[in-house]
Structure formats: structure tokens, C-alpha cells
């Protein structure tokens, strides 16, 4: 009965596929669970275990390279897919790198007056890991976008390339206006501060000599009396912390930066912004 044999063959194929699928699922399960456990712990510490985190689609998008080229400096950017209005806006974006020693990079607090809630920065990536951006909207809902990033190869390390320079230049700040800034329109800026953002280490196992941790704990940017962003962070931010942000200038004013590090040292500077005369 050729017909019947065919049916049996199909049936066997079906079983084979089912078994293969089962093997695949079983084989993959431990990894998925392990990764998820890391994240569940981080999530519980950040938000408690009862808050729902929605899929980020339509709210935020996360861009990061597939592979970290340099473990010390991985550019990531968060793009807001919803408009910032006084009624409904993204009020905070938290970045998490699951497999880093200090997984929470930090939280950027954002404000509706700036028009666009995009943020980009640079982080250290120690291992193959999920990177997550969790947005909290003004109504208290959470939305998450994530991306898996492969660790860098070669001799790349999440470490300083020129330690003496990093310490010598500590506290120096730069502000850059990206493109022309026009009155009443969202415009992009870049802030950076030279700082080792350093996790601390034991330098000599015999003498127990330590170089203590020294990292940027907060960054606060204001334009005149309007808040632009406030960042609270940790050692996963790259050396020389950098952030690109949006601001909507109403008039010529001074942009002010205040940075506090883990030694409770405060760095402050102001820059007059330039507005395009056409505006």
C-alpha cells in the first residue's frame, strides 16, 4: 500500500521534527533560563517583581552594535518613538547590561519641554550580554527594548587606555551643539566630562594596595532655569562619560552642567548657547 506507506513516512517525519524541536528547546532552555534569571534579579531590584513591563515597540527603540568593537567603549542610543508632550511623556530611561559586574548603567530623567526623548551614550560591555533600555512614561507604565551584544575580541578590555591622562584631565568638560539650534525647535547637544569612571582595583596582592573606585554619580543639565536631563549612574558608563540629548531652546541662555562623583567632588560649568539667527 504505497499510499499508506507515504502516510507513515509523513507521520515519521512529523515525529522526527517534533523530537528535533524538543531537543532544540531542551538544549536552549538552560541558557534562556540563566539569562532570564540574571534579568529577573535586576528587574526585581529596580522595579519590584509586581510591575508589568510592556514591550517597547512604539515607545522606545534601542540601537547598539551586534558586536562590541571595544569593550571599554560601546556606543548605544535610545530613540523615543512617541512625542514628548506635557500630557504624556517619557520621564525616565534606565539602561541595563545584564552580564556586567554592575548591570545598571544608570537612569536618565527626562522632561517634556525638550520635545524629543532620545539619548545616546557609551558603556562598557564585559561579556556576551543583553542590553536593555526601560522607559517609564509619565503615567507610570514601563516599556522595554533590548538587544543582544556580543563581547569584543582580541586584547580589548573594559579598562582605561591611558590611566595617567585620565587622572590628569579629570573634571574637564565639553559642550557641543550638533547642527544649528533654532528657537522653539528640538535641537541636539553633546555633553562630556573627562573622568576615569573607575571601578577600583587591588593593584598589589602583597601590599594590598588599592586604587579606590571613582566614578560619576550624577550629571544635571539645565538651560536657563529649564531642566534638560538628570543622570544617576554607576561604573558601567565608559570612561569620560558622554551623553547626547535633545533640548528645545526658547531664547538665548546659558547651558549649565553640574556633575558629582563618588568622592563627592562637584564639577560645574556654563556655556552660552548659540541660536541660529534665522530662527
Amino acid at each position: 500500500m504505497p499510499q499508506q506507506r507515504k502516510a507513515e513516512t509523513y507521520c515519521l517525519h512529523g515525529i522526527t521534527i517534533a523530537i528535533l524541536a524538543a531537543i532544540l528547546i531542551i538544549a536552549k532552555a538552560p541558557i534562556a533560563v540563566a539569562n532570564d534569571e540574571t534579568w529577573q534579579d535586576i528587574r526585581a531590584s529596580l522595579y519590584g517583581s509586581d510591575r508589568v513591563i510592556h514591550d517597547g515597540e512604539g515607545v522606545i527603540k534601542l540601537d547598539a552594535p551586534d558586536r562590541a568593537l571595544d569593550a571599554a567603549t560601546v556606543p548605544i542610543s535610545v530613540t523615543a518613538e512617541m512625542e514628548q508632550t506635557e500630557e504624556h511623556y517619557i520621564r525616565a530611561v534606565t539602561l541595563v547590561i545584564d552580564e556586567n559586574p554592575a548591570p545598571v548603567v544608570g537612569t536618565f530623567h527626562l522632561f517634556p519641554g525638550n520635545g524629543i526623548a532620545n539619548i545616546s551614550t557609551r558603556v562598557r560591555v564585559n561579556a556576551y550580554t543583553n542590553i536593555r533600555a526601560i522607559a517609564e512614561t509619565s503615567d507610570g507604565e514601563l516599556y522595554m527594548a533590548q538587544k543582544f551584544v556580543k563581547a569584543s575580541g582580541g586584547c580589548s578590555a573594559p579598562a582605561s587606555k591611558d590611566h595617567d591622562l585620565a587622572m590628569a584631565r579629570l573634571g574637564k568638560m565639553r559642550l557641543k551643539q550638533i547642527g544649528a539650534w533654532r528657537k522653539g525647535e528640538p535641537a541636539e547637544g553633546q555633553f562630556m566630562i573627562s573622568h576615569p569612571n573607575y571601578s577600583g582595583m587591588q593593584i598589589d596582592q602583597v601590599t594590598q594596595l588599592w586604587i579606590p573606585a571613582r566614578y560619576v554619580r550624577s550629571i544635571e543639565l539645565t538651560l536657563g532655569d529649564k531642566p534638560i536631563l538628570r543622570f544617576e549612574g554607576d561604573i558601567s558608563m565608559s570612561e569620560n562619560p558622554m551623553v547626547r540629548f535633545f533640548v528645545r531652546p526658547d531664547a538665548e541662555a546659558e547651558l549649565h552642567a553640574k556633575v558629582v562623583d563618588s568622592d563627592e567632588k562637584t564639577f560645574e560649568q556654563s556655556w552660552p548657547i548659540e541660536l541660529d539667527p534665522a530662527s
Partner: protein
Amino acid sequence: MEMREKGRGDLKEAPSFHPIASSPVQIPRRAFLCTAAVFAATAFTKTAGSIAAEAHLPFIEIADGVFVRYGVQEEMSAANCGAIANIGFIVGDESVAVIDTGTTLQQGAALREAVASVTSRPVSHLIATHVHPDHCFGHAAFSDLPVHSIGHRNLPRALAERGPFYLKRLAEISPDFSDTAYVAPEETVSDTMRIDLGNRPLLLKAWPPAHTDNDLTVFDERTGLLWAADLLFAGRLPTLDGSLTGWLAALDVLLSPDVRQVVPGHGQVSDGVETLQEELAYLTRLRDGVRAAIDEGLDMSATLARLEDDNQLDWLLYDTNHGRNVVAAYTELEWE
């Protein structure tokens, strides 16, 4: 010439094939397999500018009493046992200086066997050229010997910060590497240091940040040989992990008039002139390209996209390392 004869007095004949494999001394099986695998991997690598032709002799006497094991021009892997850097030793009238020990304990042990196969003089100095694991992570193979362990002033700090991370990476590449450890130098060089192996003075020089912030070179006055380590890459793309402007400044003065022969950290030994010109061309182009992008307000990702495909000199391992160099250059030059 008399000095040369004297220097070689009790040197055994340079080995004709594989000094380790033909050595009567028992070597650990894993170490043997590892060196054999490197031999096989190298013999069948036929890439432009590769060192395949020489690789059948893991330790080659490239100058009077100077022995080099060429690393393969690849990324570290289990198959090549991480043997990717040039390592070796210099024999004086009384003792031996080892310069870099490779990536693993096995490579360090193989190097120690190679020394024993050509001379009975003891190893007196163990020199690390910089923090990268392909150069100095075989040091532990010499831990039981009363040697002067020497490195750049910044090397202990760099090892403390990066060492544990590198060990984790090595263990991921192969379980065979998991018994590797790093050893910080006991003596450090801030500017220059002179050591003598018996009628064979070596001048050690600590450089300002260039390839890394802990680069050390060794100059052998007898032969005019400069062990430049990773201040020079031949064939394989240089990797930036220190200061681009510092490295360019170092290249201006690296080949002093008394240098006749150069051992690069990777690739062929030569008089160094062409190797230096190629590296200078690459690093200068990298600096100018990144500077221009920063001036135009391009962010790091846009700069990478613009400069990613720019392999002018057919460098080996360009695709795996150039992007990282762009990132490193960007983070340095944005503060100019």
C-alpha cells in the same frame, strides 16, 4: 667577530627542526600538542604577508644568540593555542634574558624548554613588553626560578586592572588555558634600564603611552637589534590600546641610527624601515580620518560607518581590528 665567538662559546647547535619536539626532555603532552597545532596551523596558512615559510622552526636564531618564535598572524583561538605574538630570548656569556612568554603557561614552558635546548646558561631576566595576554601570560612558567622580572612602570597597574578579565577570556577560548596565570613584574622601568647578560648589555626603554600605556622595548647593543614588540606590527593590522598621537610620536624616534634589525611584536623580522613606514601610513590616515569626522560633528557610529572600509595596504586581520581602532582614536581625539 671575536666577541661573537665568545658569546656563542657553549651554545649548542641551533636546532635543525623543532627544538621542543626533538628535545630529549619530557614535555607535557598538552604543551606539545599545542606547539604542534601551531606548526600545523602556520604551515597551511597562505595569506599575503604571512610568515608561513619560517614557521616550521618555532624558535629561530635570527641574530647571534637571539631566538624568536614567530606567532601566527591570526586572532587567538584554541586551534592556534593563542600563539599569535613573537616571543623569544637573548643569550649572553653568562645568562639569558627572556622577552615575552606568550599567551599561556604551556607557551611559557615551551619557551623555557627551548632555552634549555640551546644553552645551559640560566635565565636571569624575564622581560614583559606590555600587558596584552599574547605577550606576557606565559610568565608563570618561570615562577620557580630566581629571575629579575621586569616591566614598564605602568605594567603592574595594567595587569591588576585587566589581568582577571583576560584570564576569563582565555578560559573561554579553551579549557586548556585555564591554568594560566599572570605575574606582575618585581622591577619596573620608568625611563631606561641597563641590564647585562655577561658581555651582552641590553637597554630597556619604557615609552610614554603608544600601543598601550605600558610599552617596553629592548635594544641589544651587540647586534644592533631592537626588540620593538607591539610598537611595530608587520603585516598584521596594528591595534591601538594606548594613545594614537603618542604612538605616532614614538614612531618618529623608534629607529635610532644604531638600529640594524627589528623584531616586531607580530610578523617578520627586518631592518624595520618599511614596516615602520606602513604602520605610520595607517596610523596617520586613521588620525586624519577620525579628526575630520569629529570636526564635522559625526558621532562614533557615523564615524565608524564612514571609515570602516579603508584597507589601503591589505593588512591582515583588518576587519577584526580596524573598527576598534576607530573607536579608540575617536575617544582620544575628541578631547584635542
